[in-house]
């Protein structure tokens, strides 16, 4: 399943609200999350890809359906974006909560799970690695 360009942008915006630039001493700042999210979606089984896409739409439109504001996720300020994400992750409706968690798990896998970031975390006794490629895979 191929994400559209605007969905990639959404993934980037939402992901960066979840884990802002500068976190972990900036270890993930150079990563094009939107591109990675789209790649993961493209190679996933159809039902998982659907979940990737659904969690994006649900979150992007959350200010509207969750707060009653005529705004998308990209149209609210940073503090409200974080509030939206926090509320999604604790939502009383199971599938909404799972959509939030699914997105968070994907973002963590994509942002934390590459060698330079893991090295920054001190994981697996990895020596510090410069991020050679800043976008995509």
């Amino acid at each position: 399943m191929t994400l559209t360009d605007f969905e990639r942008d959404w993934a980037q915006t939402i992901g960066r609200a979840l884990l802002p630039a500068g976190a972990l001493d900036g270890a993930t700042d150079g990563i094009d999350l939107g591109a990675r999210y789209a790649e993961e979606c493209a190679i996933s089984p159809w039902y998982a890809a659907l979940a990737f896409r659904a969690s994006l739409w649900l979150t992007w439109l959350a200010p509207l359906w969750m707060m009653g504001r005529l705004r998308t996720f990209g149209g609210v300020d940073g503090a409200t974006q974080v509030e939206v994400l926090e509320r999604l992750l604790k939502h009383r409706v199971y599938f909404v909560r799972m959509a939030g968690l699914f997105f968070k798990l994907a973002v963590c896998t994509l942002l934390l799970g590459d060698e330079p970031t893991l090295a920054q975390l001190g994981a697996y006794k990895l020596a510090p690695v410069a991020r050679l490629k800043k976008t995509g895979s």
Partner: protein
Amino acid sequence: MSAGAFVEGAVSGLPLEEADFVIVGSGAGGGAAARVLAASGARVVVLEEGPRLDPKTLGVSEGASRNRLFRNQGKQAAFGRATTPILQGRCVGGTTFVNSAIVWRLPAKILERWHDEFGLADGLPARALDEAAARVEEELSVRPVVEGVTASQSDLLLRKGSQAAGIEGRLIHRYEKGCRGSGRCFHGCPHEAKQSTAVTSLRRAVGDGGFVVAGARVERVERRGGRAVAVHGFFSGDGPEHGQRFRLAAKKAIVVCGGAIQSSNLLWRSGVRSAHLGRHFMAHPGTAVMGLYPERVDAWTGASQGYEAFGLRDTLGVKFESINVPPEVTGARLPGAGARFAARLTELPYVANWAVALKAEAEGRVRPSLLFGDYVRYDLTRGDLERLRQGMRKLAEMHFDAGAREVITGVAGLPESLRSRDEVSVFDDAPLDPRGYNLVMTHLFGGCRAGRDAATSVVDPTLKVHGVDGLYVMDASVFPTNTGVNPQHSIMSIAGVAAARLAG
């Protein structure tokens, strides 16, 4: 005996037109069966749907290795009130390639029940199983995690917590040779120290003239006159023959070792019909309780799992295990978003993850599905959920007893974190609803359960499918009950016994 080989199906096709034994699946059951049958001098071909991978190429990213090593990239799930991820290996070595290599013999009480209630005494006698288990232990180099070498700080903390709680436990016994404590068992051991079937029994089978074909998915078993005679499938790997169909005949028998889900569904697609096929699907669902400690835990060193507390297995039906899941997965379980989440991530080196694995009484159902390929329906019972939350409370107590400064509950509706042992009673109010928990299912059993009576089982005590000659199932799908222990060793033992009988 001429030498066999590991073959990439999509590149090389099949090495033979006809074998004595065709084995479907290369995990614990397939590896053990191949080892015994090839050693008997028979021509053995193992067909594995997934790829054969060099672990050195897998890297450190959990996501990248999961995509290559796990069935449906680790995105397979059971459906019910909650959607629960199911983790199964899909590569040469099967789940033995991606698990923690934990060794437990089949408990004597469980085997007695199998003998008494299901009539398996003739097919799986205790003495033969003991001998098979001992042989596997010798060949796969079983030893406990070594303190100071492969034990992690999380393991030692769990030992401290379980001792404070008076719960019996031990450093985990594992199949490994030369483990360096890289903390990447779930990625596929980078040093091939883990003694998966890919580096043990399958290599021995190849040495005895067997062939292991990677990237060859079996779709159905062909039967003629009540006898299984061949398998049909297609090449599922990368390469010029991808998608091309094949047929491989078996002169003596076809041995299905695809695991609880795939074996059941392969029989179903092959026209085997039994009221019990795909039923009695069981598992050990589990979830983690995270403790944050004042000192560094660095839960990415040591064996991925190094300590287990099993003293409540026969009473509460739970087992506790330290589990060093990759940091990116642990990170996702830390609460919050934005700056709060970023701050939490700096605490990753201080997190110890301990899992409660539940010997669930729930039974689910497996069926082929046009939409999902394999469809699994599964719901925990109320009793399971009560025991799960009691187990989580106990783990929280143990974390505090071991010195944790904070415990992350990970349960919807409960406080995000607890700061003292006095607060652990919140788990008594945890929901009796699986949707409240972040569960993962491993250790899958049933679907083709064994028994003497064809009216209540799918395979007989020799593990032959009732009513079909030359068709056997040798994996955890034949287990008639939940064992409550890690199943790899039991699978290897029963497959070894059944294959030895089949080899004559």
